[in-house]
């Protein structure tokens, strides 16, 4: 067992030394793998972020009810009473038109524009938190409220999130396809890299076979090499994603300031980072294994 571990450690060290002996070509190989991986992995990160935002919106679906501009106090009082008594509604929140205007003034920096208005263009509104948040229940409630007298417009605020959810499903499928394709590309890149290594080390393989090396012994450094290429490629992809996010977040902060909200893209979680590294290492190993199975058999001592 100890012997076996020592053999593996030696093969790994040997492979590392080989990798460092040709730093430029190793770095380029690793970069190719890194770029190929960073595309699907980056898309996954983006999708996760968008999904996170959508989920926060979907979590507490609201219905905004805007009253008609000409609704009088009587109408408002009636609607208030009806809403409070409605079976399907959990909680309501009244937003008087003056308060809504004030909010817009403060939060969007449009104070100058609003100050110039002679009349408040906003209606009174209610924010409703329904008890049942299923899509059908929300729509039924919306349709019902829409018919009430004095109500101008009813909006289900989570509708956009549901549309986004559908879009996200599409995005995930696209990412999956891209990921599979670029996974194949990674396998192909390591396959070729290892093929070249095998060809340049033909003499060594031949001599090793002549003096009693088992196939496992000969295979080992190549498999480690493929795995290391994959692993380092995965690390390169991780760096590419993290750096890109840092750059994007810098720009996004400016944009978000203009819209008076905060938008930050979160990077990969520790678990996802490990998954990325593990996945790329496995694919590198697979490429090396295929290459070794294909080419090593042809080298027999003469």
């Amino acid at each position, binding site marked *: 067992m100890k012997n076996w571990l*020592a053999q593996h450690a030696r093969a790994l060290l040997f492979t590392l030394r080989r990798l460092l002996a040709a730093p430029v070509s190793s770095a380029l190989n690793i970069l190719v793998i890194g770029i190929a991986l960073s595309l699907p992995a980056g898309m996954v990160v983006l999708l996760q972020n968008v999904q996170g935002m959508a989920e926060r919106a979907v979590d507490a679906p609201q219905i905004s009810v805007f009253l008609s501009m000409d609704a009088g106090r009587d109408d408002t009082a009636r609607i208030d009473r009806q809403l409070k008594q409605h079976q399907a509604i959990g909680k309501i929140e009244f937003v008087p038109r003056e308060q809504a205007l004030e909010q817009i003034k403060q939060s969007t920096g449009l104070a100058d524009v609003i100050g110039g208005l002679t009349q408040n263009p906003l209606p009174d509104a209610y924010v409703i938190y329904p008890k049942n948040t299923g899509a059908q229940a929300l729509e039924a409630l919306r349709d019902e409220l829409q018919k009430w007298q004095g109500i101008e417009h009813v909006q289900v605020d989570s509708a956009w999130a549901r549309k986004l959810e559908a879009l996200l499903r599409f995005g995930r499928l696209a990412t999956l396809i891209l990921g599979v394709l670029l996974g194949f590309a990674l396998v192909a890149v390591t396959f070729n890299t290892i093929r070249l290594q095998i060809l340049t080390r033909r003499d060594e393989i031949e001599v090793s076979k002549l003096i009693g090396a088992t196939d496992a012994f000969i295979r080992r450094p190549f498999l480690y090499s493929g795995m290391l290429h994959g692993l380092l490629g995965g690390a390169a992809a991780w760096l590419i994603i993290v750096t890109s996010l840092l750059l994007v977040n810098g720009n996004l902060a400016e944009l978000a300031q203009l819209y008076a909200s905060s938008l930050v893209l979160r990077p990969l979680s520790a678990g996802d980072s490990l998954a990325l590294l593990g996945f790329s290492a496995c694919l590198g190993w697979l490429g090396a294994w295929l290459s070794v199975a294909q080419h090593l058999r042809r080298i027999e001592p003469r």
Partner: protein
Amino acid sequence: MIRFNQVCKRYPGGYEALKNVTFEIAGGEMVFLAGHSGAGKSTLLHLVAAIERPNSGSVVVRGQNVASLRGGALPYLRRNLGLIFQDHKLLFDRSAFDNVMLPLQICGGDYRESAKRVRAALDKVGLLQREKANPIALSGGEQQRLCIARAIVNRPSILLADEPTGNLDAGYAGEIMDIFQSFHQVGVTLLIATHDESALRHFAARTLTLKHGELQQ
């Protein structure tokens, strides 16, 4: 130790390299294999190390029929053989020390113990001072001696040498033969293919002579 029984080896195309070869070499014996080039000397050595397989007959090495050995068992056969090649087959991407270290790495083992054995083998062939040199910087005779060091570092019971003095002048060739003589004295079985007449005359050893693939009695 080595027994050939009616061995035939035919190459694709119909060329018969060995025809009905039968002989036996006892443990600890030193045997020369003589014959003109193309007589089948290399083929015979290849059959012993299972680098090639015979078309018919049996090749028994240390009690094992090599001709029917599975591929997976080959490495373990070869670890008990020391192979010495005319073209040395040294690796030029590493030092003399690392070249000799290779067989021990393949078997696996404690590094310090292995290093000691490598130095002992280098000392045996008189190359201890050159352990850090790249084989490319060694002379032909030194390269041949390095190849011998690599073959014996595993302490094999059988040494096979294919034209070990083929490219060397008389002085170097004498040194190499002296080294072989010393292995013979400690009980190693040696089979040396050579067309070097002086070596054959120098030692009072049994000689198998091949002519057009047939053993001359």
